[in-house]
Structure formats: structure tokens, C-alpha cells
């Protein structure tokens, strides 16, 4: 789980080459096979659509990203608080985890339209779905992190007669930081998906709404433009988290010789 240096020139170059090759093959394939645009548009066409509708896409992206981030923060807070309670009061773990697994096993695709029905086309149902989707990975990861504290360090705190609360603040919490980032790196893309799925079931705006409109009109360049944006935003989020992780969990940086 060592955070690697992100955005280093060599990785960036190889990633660029791979993505570019992929787009080139796609473009070539579409042109050579004379693929109709309602089945698969060429990437050049998609990017053109994107640039012709920048303000539309910018607005939709801002809305979806906003929903995703608010939901992520809520899911993160809830998962974190619950994990902390379970560590400080271990007796509760069995019951609460059963409930949490129940929530996790419920297909969100089925819940989303219900929430839209109850809460309307506004942002609220999107935020709820996103929070529900991110809550579980956060809970499980942070709980694991809080519980897998180095036994040697736990012994030390016991020998010092530190209280349960002091042990939590000074030992368990900082040692769970790598797990928090693992949770975030799983949850951030999930939050984005959650927001889009919720919008798909009915919304007044957002990338999911744009995609749904494009899909019903078989306007594939529009649809793919939204997909491109989602992929780019997801990747940016992930890289940002990796960058943050390398700074926050600095002690896991491998020793330099």
C-alpha cells in the first residue's frame, strides 16, 4: 500500500502513449469500417461535440460532481463515525455490521427511482444515493484500519496505562490513515457513478440527465462526450487522492538509499 509518486514524467508519458494509441485505433476502425454514427462515433466527433457544447457540459459536470462530493463527504463521515463507535464499543459490531451489509446488498439501481419518486428531481435523492454507496466501503476499510493497529504499539500504550480514548486518538486513528485513503480511492469513483445513476432515473440536470437525453435520442456523440468527461473526472479524483495520500501517509514512503 505504498503511495507511489504520482504524475511522474515517465508514467505520464506511458499513460499518454497508451491512451493516444487507443483513440487512434478507435478512430481508424470507425473510419475503415464506415461505422454509422448512431452505433459508434469516432473519438474526433465526440471531442468536437464536447467543444461545441462546453457550457452545457460544464454546468452538467459541476452539478454531478457537486452531488457526488457532498454525498461522498456524508458517506465518509457516517462510515467514519460508525467505525469509531464500533472500535470504542466492540460489543455493537455484530449487529451494526449486519445492518450495514444489508444496506450494501440492496441494489442502488432499484432504490434510486424510489428516492426520486419520494424526493423529487432535485439534488437530494442523488446525494442520498451517493452517500449510501460510499458509506459501506468507508465503514469496512476504516474499521479494519482502526482494528489492525500494530500489537506492539498497543502493548506499549497499555504499559503506559493510556485510556481507551487516548489510545484511539494517539494510536488507532493515525494508524488507520492508510486505510482511509484506500477507502477514499474506492469510494470516489463510486460516488460519481452513484450520482450519475440517480440522475439517470430522473433529474433536472447533470451528466446522468445529459446521458439519458442523448441515449433516448440515439445521439451517441453527446452520450460519449459525457462518458469522456466522467472518465477524466474519475481519473483526476483518483490522482488527486493518491497525491494527497503520499503527503498524509508520508511515513510509508520507501526508504531512499
Amino acid at each position, binding site marked *: 500500500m505504498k503511495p507511489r509518486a504520482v504524475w511522474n514524467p515517465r508514467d505520464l508519458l506511458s499513460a499518454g502513449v497508451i491512451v493516444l494509441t487507443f483513440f487512434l485505433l478507435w478512430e481508424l476502425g470507425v473510419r475503415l469500417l464506415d461505422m454509422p454514427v448512431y452505433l459508434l462515433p469516432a473519438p474526433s466527433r465526440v471531442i468536437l461535440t464536447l467543444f461545441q457544447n462546453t457550457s452545457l457540459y460544464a454546468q452538467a459536470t459541476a452539478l454531478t460532481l457537486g452531488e457526488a462530493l457532498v454525498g461522498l463527504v456524508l458517506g465518509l463521515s457516517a462510515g467514519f463515525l460508525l467505525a469509531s463507535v464500533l472500535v470504542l464499543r466492540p460489543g455493537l459490531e455484530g449487529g451494526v455490521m449486519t445492518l450495514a451489509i444489508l444496506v450494501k446488498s440492496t441494489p442502488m439501481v432499484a432504490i434510486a427511482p424510489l428516492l426520486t419518486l419520494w424526493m423529487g428531481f432535485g439534488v437530494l435523492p442523488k446525494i442520498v444515493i451517493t452517500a449510501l454507496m460510499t458509506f459501506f466501503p468507508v465503514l469496512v476499510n476504516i474499521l479494519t484500519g482502526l482494528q489492525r493497529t500494530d500489537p506492539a504499539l498497543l*502493548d506499549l*500504550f497499555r504499559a503506559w*496505562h493510556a485510556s481507551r480514548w*487516548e489510545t484511539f486518538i494517539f494510536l488507532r486513528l493515525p494508524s488507520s490513515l492508510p486505510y482511509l485513503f484506500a477507502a477514499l480511492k474506492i469510494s470516489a469513483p463510486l460516488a460519481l457513478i452513484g450520482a450519475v445513476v440517480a440522475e439517470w432515473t430522473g433529474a433536472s440536470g447533470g451528466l446522468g440527465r445529459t446521458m439519458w437525453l442523448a441515449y433516448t435520442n440515439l445521439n451517441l456523440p453527446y452520450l460519449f462526450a459525457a462518458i469522456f468527461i466522467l472518465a477524466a473526472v474519475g481519473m483526476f479524483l483518483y490522482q488527486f487522492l493518491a497525491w494527497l495520500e503520499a503527503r498524509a501517509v508520508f511515513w510509508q514512503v520507501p*526508504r531512499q538509499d
Partner: protein
Amino acid sequence: MHLEIEQLSHTFAGRPPRAALAELSFAVPSGQFTAVIGPSGCGKSTLLRLAAGLLPVQEGSLRLGGQTPAQAGAQRRVAWMAQSPALLPWRTVRDNVLLALRFLPAGHAARLSADEALARVGLSDSANAYPFMLSGGMQQRLALARTLMLDAGLWLMDEPFAALDELTRERLTHELLDLWQAQRPTVLWVTHHIQEALRLADRVVVLSPRPARLILDLPVDLPRPRPESSPAFQALLSRLRAALGLAAAPAEEGA
């Protein structure tokens, strides 16, 4: 603080159960420096963990100044140093030392300041470094500083010099004896280094392979510092080697 160990047995549950200590008895008078030697896996760390209150006493009794380990520990009369350095990787060297003071109840003070303690083990230059930047021996010295600075009546030290080279060992031996002579705590010093035990301790207790029993209780009545070349030192050395089942030939290396 005197230490009384009587008929102390300890068995780890499991399949099969593992006996670590078997009816171990010995007493350490207040202020005595006792080295504990025994083969790897015989139960030395278990003994220290029992005394530190980290394991419950199952059978027999263990009294620290007349108190149970839990009572003595709650009054911060015991300082325990683990076999692994057990450092907090997100805290600097100085902050690692300072943390030990945080949990002292009101009215308890440390014997040394953090910077003094670091100076004693030769880590002043690294006070602002993080543990992952230290070598194994430096990490061990940091753990040593953290333990020695506490004003405890009993030092439970689990192979504190194990990762150190001979030079550093020599230097720290002076520092340690200095501190010990100033404070006169009772010391239980686990080591697998026979010469080290003879250089430091008032007495060497030799344990058998697991489960640990007492096989030799050797007083070391030599004035410090103790040159290894002296005939008296060599005589004690061969007695220890014999008890541990090692060849009688005088050798350069440790266990």
C-alpha cells in the same frame, strides 16, 4: 522496588497449549541489576510481559514491591521496554519520546527531559527526524531513551542492546550504568549476550529451554568497570557457557 516471583507458570492457550514458564521462582532485592539469559523462545519476554501487567498471572505469584503488576503499573512504578522498538512512525524522534510523558498522571515527572534522554543515547542530531529515517540500532536507542527517562522503580528491559554494534553497546553501557547508579532502580535485563550480562549485572539468572525454569543463579561480585580479560570475568563466563550448554572454549562472540 523488590521483586518476588514464586512458582510462576504460564501457558498460552491454543492447540496444542504452549507452556512458556514452569514454576519459576526467584527474588530480586530492591536496586539490584539482574540479567536474564536463556535460549530463544524459552519465555524471557513472557516473564517481562507478566511483570509489566500485559499478561494476566495464571499460576503462582509475581509481586512488585508487594503489589500486583497492575497496581504497580497504575502508579507508574514500572518502565517496560519491548523487544521491538515499537515507535510511532508519524511522530518525530523527539515527539516519540515526549509521548511517553503524556500519559503520566498529574504529579508524576520524568527523570530526564526529552532532549536529555536523546543526548544520553546519542540521538540529539536526529531529534527532528522520523523513525523510518533511522537505522535499526538508532530506533532501538530511541526506544531505550523513551524508557530510561521515566522515573520508574523497576526497569523491565527486553534485549535493549540486541541490534547494536559493539561500539555503540560499549558507549551505552556507560550511560546506562550511570543512570542506574544515579537512580538505583531494580532492573530485569533480558539479553542473549553473555558478556553483556556479565559486564552489567549484579547477578545473572539462567533459564532452561521452554518452559523456562531456573537452571543457574549466578552472583557477579566484580567491581565495575569489568575488563573481560580478567581471570575472574573469564571464570564466570565459563560457568555461564557451561550452564547454557555451550562449549567451554573461550570465544569472542556472544550467545
